[in-house]
């Protein structure tokens, strides 16, 4: 495979495009509400009307507005149909040349769509994730070719540093620096690993990227491998994502067949092989040292760092671990330049971030916005606020490692530093909206139960501490707690935070601390003499 072959494939793919394209979402969300039946019905209707040479039905990835799925969109008109039922497909096809279909038409001019800036999701919902040609026609694998033929590994690392990309898996460590460290380490064997464990409940960005645009991850990995000097890669995907796994397998097979993976990629001396490892349902395996143990076929138990995986990782070799979304940013950065990327976002947080909006919010789904966009814009404008006129009580970000941001802090811009300032974290991008019905003690207890169950048990502060915190929260919830218990709760939280071995234990108290900080009335209402609760106007609530 050479550049001209790549261009040929892209040209042929574009030329074979029919005048009217009907894109039908076949990502997990829509598939679970009859998406496949909708696609088949569209195919049938096109055939029944003899429109095959003018109209093509394409199965695409997530279009973002998952709560209104199954979604169907028609090009070039741009008409979006929501909650499509198979029986409506005939009328959608009948209306392709004008006229109205018997299906709900969505408003594509609402902020949910117009305020987005697509970098990671640029192909999502547009290309067919099961066809490599579709990705190549969208400029796919061009960056890899450029990198292999026109750039040195050091130049690639420089570009990523200049772009200012930070890890999207949670902590926000500068990606370029990490690459530089692995690149510098001398070793015969190195690995690149994709962290696709996505254990945060309420987060589905990584799933969506893998299902909608799997080649983007392979291209990002290959570029990373070239930059750091690795020749083997692993994608560690959670077992709960069967569709993502199968699309990734398809993508690997296709790329290998075209010589875009394997030996002598693009006729260059670069060799790169990718394997998939399927997780087995342990949240702690998202932690990088635990993930490495798991790939090696052991219990996924974290170990102290240093040494960092960059120095000693998989099988003791230098290993680069990045999140799915981090890799998804790589090809666009090389295609459009570090400057372009650095011009999006804020001073310290460059680029865009994908968020999974869920919970008590009108528009549930995926959005991609520039870093620095105020939470209020995301939740109220794009998300449409709480349905049925309810009010936002809190926005939970960062899952069990994060915190609850109160309504009063909705003007916080989403970037790493600002979110930390209000006691939460960016995390991987899960954003769950809660309303007045939700009791924050109950929410804190929910996350603590999660951490307690998922603690690997290696170190005492986390193993025993989470159990004790959970017990105290239960006591509070059941109105059996005293002020003394509340004080113990605080002490215990600080202790677990400071003495646990890995990020799971270190961040487990965050939801408790943030709810204590912003929603003390929820706690107070459940503590103390029964005559007190109404004193500050907070009605006692239990979920």
């Amino acid at each position, binding site marked *: 495979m050479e550049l001209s072959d790549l261009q040929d494939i892209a040209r042929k793919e574009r030329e074979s495009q029919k005048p009217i394209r009907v894109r039908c979402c076949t990502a997990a969300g829509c598939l679970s509400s009859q998406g496949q039946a909708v696609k088949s019905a569209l195919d049938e209707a096109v055939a029944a009307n003899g429109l095959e040479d003018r109209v093509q039905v394409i199965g695409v990835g997530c279009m973002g507005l998952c709560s209104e799925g199954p979604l169907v969109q028609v090009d070039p008109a741009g008409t979006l149909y929501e909650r499509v039922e198979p029986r409506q497909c005939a009328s959608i096809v009948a209306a392709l040349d004008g006229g109205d279909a018997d299906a709900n038409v969505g408003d594509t001019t609402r902020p949910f769509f117009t305020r987005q800036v697509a970098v990671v999701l640029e192909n999502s919902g547009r290309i067919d994730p099961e066809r490599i040609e579709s990705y190549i026609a969208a400029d796919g694998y061009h960056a890899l070719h450029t990198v292999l033929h026109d750039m040195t590994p050091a130049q690639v690392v420089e570009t990523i540093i200049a772009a200012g990309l930070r890890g999207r898996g949670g902590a926000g460590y500068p990606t370029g620096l990490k690459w530089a460290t692995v690149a510098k380490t001398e070793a015969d064997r190195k690995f690149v690993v994709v962290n696709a464990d996505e254990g945060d*409940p309420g987060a589905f960005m990584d799933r969506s990227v893998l299902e909608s645009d799997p080649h983007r991850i392979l291209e990002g990995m290959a570029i990373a491998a070239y930059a750091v000097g690795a020749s083997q890669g692993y994608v560690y995907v959670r077992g*709960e994502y069967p*569709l993502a796994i199968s699309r990734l397998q398809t993508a690997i097979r296709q790329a290998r067949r075209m010589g875009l993976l394997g030996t002598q990629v693009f006729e260059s001396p670069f060799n790169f092989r990718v394997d998939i490892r*399927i997780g087995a349902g342990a949240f702690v395996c998202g932690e990088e040292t635990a993930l490495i143990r798991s790939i090696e076929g052991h219990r996924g138990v974290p170990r102290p760092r240093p040494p960092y995986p960059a120095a000693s990782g998989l099988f003791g070799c230098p290993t680069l671990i990045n999140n799915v979304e981090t890799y998804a940013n790589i090809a666009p950065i090389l295609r459009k330049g570090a400057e372009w990327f650095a011009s999006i976002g804020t001073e310290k947080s460059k680029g865009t971030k994908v968020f999974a909006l869920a919970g008590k919010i009108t528009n549930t789904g995926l959005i991609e916005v520039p870093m620095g966009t105020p939470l209020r814009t995301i939740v109220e404008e794009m998300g449409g606020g709480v349905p049925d006129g309810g009010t936002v009580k809190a926005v939970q970000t960062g899952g069990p490692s994060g915190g609850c941001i109160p309504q009063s802090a909705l003007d916080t811009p989403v970037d790493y530093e600002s979110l930390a300032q209000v006691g939460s974290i960016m995390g991987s991008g899960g954003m769950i909206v809660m309303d007045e019905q939700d009791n924050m003690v109950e929410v804190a207890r929910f996350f603590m139960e999660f951490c307690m169950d998922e603690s690997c048990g290696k170190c005492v502060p986390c193993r025993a501490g989470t159990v004790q915190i959970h017990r105290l929260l239960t006591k509070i919830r059941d109105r059996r707690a005293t002020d003394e218990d509340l004080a113990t709760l605080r002490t215990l939280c600080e202790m677990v935070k400071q003495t646990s071995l890995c990020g799971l234990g270190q961040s487990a108290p965050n939801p408790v601390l943030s709810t204590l900080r912003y929603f003390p009335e929820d706690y107070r209402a459940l503590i103390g003499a029964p005559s007190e609760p109404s004193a500050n106007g907070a009605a006692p609530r239990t979920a």
Partner: protein
Amino acid sequence: MESTVVAREKPRAAGGAKQHPSGDNRFKMLEATMKRHQYQADALIEVLHTAQELFGYLEEDLLIYVAHSLKVPPSRVFGVATFYHFFSLKPKGLHTCVVCMGTACYVKGAANVVTAIETMAGVRSGETTGDGKLSLLTARCLGACGIAPAVVLDGAVTGRQTPDTVTQLVKGWLE
């Protein structure tokens, strides 16, 4: 609470798998997986995935068989099989109902769905009914939060469920 795997399950043969390796075709398929990984110990989790897909659950004999084949101590195989939520050392019921208890589903009332099924079927979450007809399980986010609350019924993910809709569906299985 027990997390579980949802969609990679295949129907399992009736009864446990007690046959000798030579007599059971499934062992051949397991053998093929191990061979593909060159019997390397680091493929243990992959092999257990395949074993569970083939046999439905990881019975003791099966774990010992895997330990011998990959030349790793049985203690390590048991250690791994019990560490991960995905692996089940007990047989599951004829039908499975997995209710997502991730945050998005939780705030949309998933707990009420679980309670409704528990009451209706007389089974506790994480367990199987006495007649072996239904296993009720919970999961930690299926990544389908956009259609919360999500429930997996015999491998098919369904969204926007309520206590009523789910009990209606599950009732049919119990008759």
